């Protein structure tokens, strides 16, 4: 039987893994060897998309053609998009489902729904897996944040389908992490999984016993992650640099610099970063202290969500036997300190926190393939489910943290005489009033008219092992039944889905060399741009002879880009890099000198 792959479809990066000889293994990019695929897509002028590293790099130059964190928009409505995101992207909500409007670079635009964009990423991972395994891959286990609601989960399944993958199971990311650590083999253990990814924070409390893993409680924040820490660093950089007019290009450069600074500060107490702004390259020094002061509240938020999850699980921090760190942002020392402080024990971090979820997804894929038979995951619903009853009250049928599959059935009656139908409004949330909960679906069921209070309508909820809800309602007296599979309000309609599938398959098999070429061209474009900028800004550091050499290399590269030989383009990129290396070194030296001079001037003044 064909293998099932495990996929971590992350906000910032995505990975694919598979079981090989009883062990989970990441399948890296066959060409670069990188285990991570940046979850980035960028629209090219010819209407096709670049995906992954080249898209992420292209985003710096073409922010309005690119999407970096599409997972934020999966299964949400326009009202859930925050100001920061609105500044970065244009959204359209015309047809019901949220769409992102991308500029194609030749004056036109193209709308893309979040599942479509995610499907591009999934298709890339599928290709990766197929090239590594030498066989077709059609089935996958995909991980989602434990906090994802029904619409977001459905959107993820839609993305899988668009990518030509049968999504056998959605697994909560923290649960996958525990599987990767093999903690399910423990006799009995209480595990907290602290997952601070690029864009989401999740904490799960798992009870492991005799090869069974049970989620006792989950908590978190869909809008808290490493990106938020980056934004704090960006703000620090902006203060250091002065000025307030930041072009989109500058902001992208700042974001890159912030990421580098943050990474560096995980290992050292002072980071020095180069910020190649449009107005000139600047060198900025940041201390870990300043970074930690600027992000205290973010760390605090993660800890308070941990406390809530512990409370929901009915456990104390000291009861926890193992703490697992997941997500690149857990490399931040302040985060580790806070986690250790809360639980009173050092967290596990032996497995690369970026890879651990994908590895766990592969383990679950192995379970579903029948490969390993002594493990079983017991999962819970993340949010309560119910219906609206008289007075706009939310009546729960299934409580948060109920183990799935789950079913519940209740009888309801009418409030008004001679009603000819009742409306079943399906909701999800923890609030008392229907209007404060998320609407998942509405449907009407005709009933035999009668005096108020006499009709009996039996409503049944059934959640399958994937957390997908179906609802049915039955007029008990006539035995007429209406059932629906809950179509989330922000999801795609069946028709939209069909159209997208057709389009997807039309575009699907652009050949590999073509993609290599596109990626090489993007890289060339970005180095040519950088070279031109450096020449303009640092004219005084360049003599005629050297300029001639660089210009020659640049023009060779430009010429090669009009051709179709990606290897030649790669070679000439390298040549241009080589030709410009002494020049780049001088720019660097000069910037450092300026930085040192301005510092001593400041110290003298002080």
């Amino acid at each position: 039987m064909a293998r099932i792959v495990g996929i971590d479809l992350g906000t910032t990066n995505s990975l694919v893994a598979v079981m090989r000889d009883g062990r989970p293994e990441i399948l890296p990019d066959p060409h670069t060897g990188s285990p991570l695929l940046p979850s980035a897509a960028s629209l090219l002028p010819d209407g096709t998309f670049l995906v992954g590293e080249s898209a992420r790099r292209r985003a710096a130059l073409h922010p309005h053609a690119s999407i970096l964190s599409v997972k934020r928009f999966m299964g949400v409505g326009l009202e859930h998009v925050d100001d920061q995101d609105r500044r970065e992207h244009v959204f359209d909500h015309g047809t019901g489902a949220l769409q992102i409007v991308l500029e194609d670079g030749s004056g036109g635009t193209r709308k893309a729904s979040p599942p479509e964009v995610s499907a591009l990423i999934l298709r890339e991972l599928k290709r990766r897996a197929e090239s590594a395994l030498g066989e077709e891959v059609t089935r996958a286990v995909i991980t989602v944040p434990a906090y994802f609601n029904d619409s977001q989960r459905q959107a993820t399944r839609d993305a899988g389908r668009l990518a030509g993958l049968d999504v056998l199971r959605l697994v909560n990311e923290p649960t996958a992490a525990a599987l990767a650590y093999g903690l399910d083999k423990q006799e009995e253990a209480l595990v907290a999984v602290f997952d601070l990814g690029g864009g989401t924070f999740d904490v799960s409390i798992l009870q492991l016993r005799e090869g069974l893993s049970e989620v006792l409680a989950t908590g978190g924040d869909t809008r808290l992650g490493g990106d938020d820490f980056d934004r704090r660093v960006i703000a620090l950089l902006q203060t250091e640099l002065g000025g307030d007019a930041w072009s989109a290009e500058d902001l992208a450069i700042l974001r890159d610099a912030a990421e580098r600074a943050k990474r560096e500060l995980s290992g050292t107490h002072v980071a020095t970063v180069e910020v190649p702004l449009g107005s000139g390259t600047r060198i900025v020094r940041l201390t870990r202290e300043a970074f930690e002061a600027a992000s205290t509240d973010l760390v605090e938020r993660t800890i308070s969500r941990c406390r809530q999850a512990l409370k929901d699980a009915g456990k104390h921090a000291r009861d926890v036997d193992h703490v697992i760190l997941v997500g690149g942002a857990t490399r931040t020392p302040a985060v580790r300190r806070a986690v250790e402080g809360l639980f009173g024990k050092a967290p596990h971090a032996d497995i690369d926190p970026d890879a651990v979820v994908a590895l766990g997804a592969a383990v679950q894929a192995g379970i579903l393939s029948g490969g390993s038979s002594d493990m079983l995951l017991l999962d819970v619903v993340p949010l309560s489910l119910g219906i609206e009853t008289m007075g706009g009250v939310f009546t729960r049928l299934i409580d948060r943290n109920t183990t799935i599959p789950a079913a519940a059935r209740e009888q309801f009656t009418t409030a008004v005489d001679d009603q000819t139908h009742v409306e079943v409004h399906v909701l999800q949330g923890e609030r008392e009033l229907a209007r404060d909960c998320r609407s998942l679906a509405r449907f009407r069921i005709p009933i035999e008219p009668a005096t108020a209070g006499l009709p009996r309508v039996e409503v049944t909820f059934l959640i399958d092992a994937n957390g997908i809800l179906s609802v049915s309602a039955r007029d008990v007296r006539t035995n007429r039944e209406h059932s629906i599979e809950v179509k989330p309000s922000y999801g795609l309609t069946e028709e939209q889905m069909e159209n997208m599938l057709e389009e997807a398959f039309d575009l699907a098999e652009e050949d590999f060399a073509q993609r290599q070429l596109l990626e090489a061209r993007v890289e060339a474009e970005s180095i040519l741009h950088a070279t031109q900028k450096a020449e303009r800004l640092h004219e005084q550091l360049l003599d005629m002879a050297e300029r001639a050499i660089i210009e020659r290399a640049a023009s060779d590269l430009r010429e090669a880009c009009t051709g179709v030989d990606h290897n030649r383009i790669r070679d000439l990129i390298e040549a241009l890099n080589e030709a410009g290396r002494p020049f780049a070194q001088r720019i660097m030296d000069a910037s450092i000198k300026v930085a040192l001079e301005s510092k001593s001037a400041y110290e003298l003044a002080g």
Partner: protein
Amino acid sequence: MQALPQDTDYFAVLGLPPHPGLDGVDLDRRYYELSRKLHPDRYQTRPIEEQRASVQATALLNAAHRTLRDVEARGRYWLVRSGDSLARENQSVPPRLAAYVFDVQEKLADVRASVNGSASALRSELVETQRELTERLDRQRAMLADMLRGWPAENLAAGASPTPDERRPAALRELKNVLSELSYLRTLDRDLQNALEA
């Protein structure tokens, strides 16, 4: 979608003798054993009918486990199983709690009516009241657990004619009292919590 089997007994689902005390029963172990057999993950490669049946069976198993593992849920279930139930809109004060409830509600009314000056003293009094109430809830749950453990056994011997135990109707009445008191105390606790958060 198929309807769930009607009136399936939770004790039967878990293969346990129908006694609300669950004395000496490792409920979790039983539940895990059955989960291993029934869970949909085990049926991924089986025909669709088997997959559906597995979802239904596991949903029922999960409901049974969730109900029986919690003493209050188990008590309520036992009441329903014995043909009685707590009225859903039961808002009248349980007689044995009347004096206590009156006392707490008076404190709540004071806080609601208070102006800023006296609010903080009243607040700390309210915190103390809530702590007391938490203890009372714990005692009430312990009482319920004891009651369920000592529940008069049904005559289950094969062939024996069911001899209604004289004590059972009285025990059932008392179970209902204890449960409705518990429910009322929790409502009170929520009111206190709301007042403290306001």
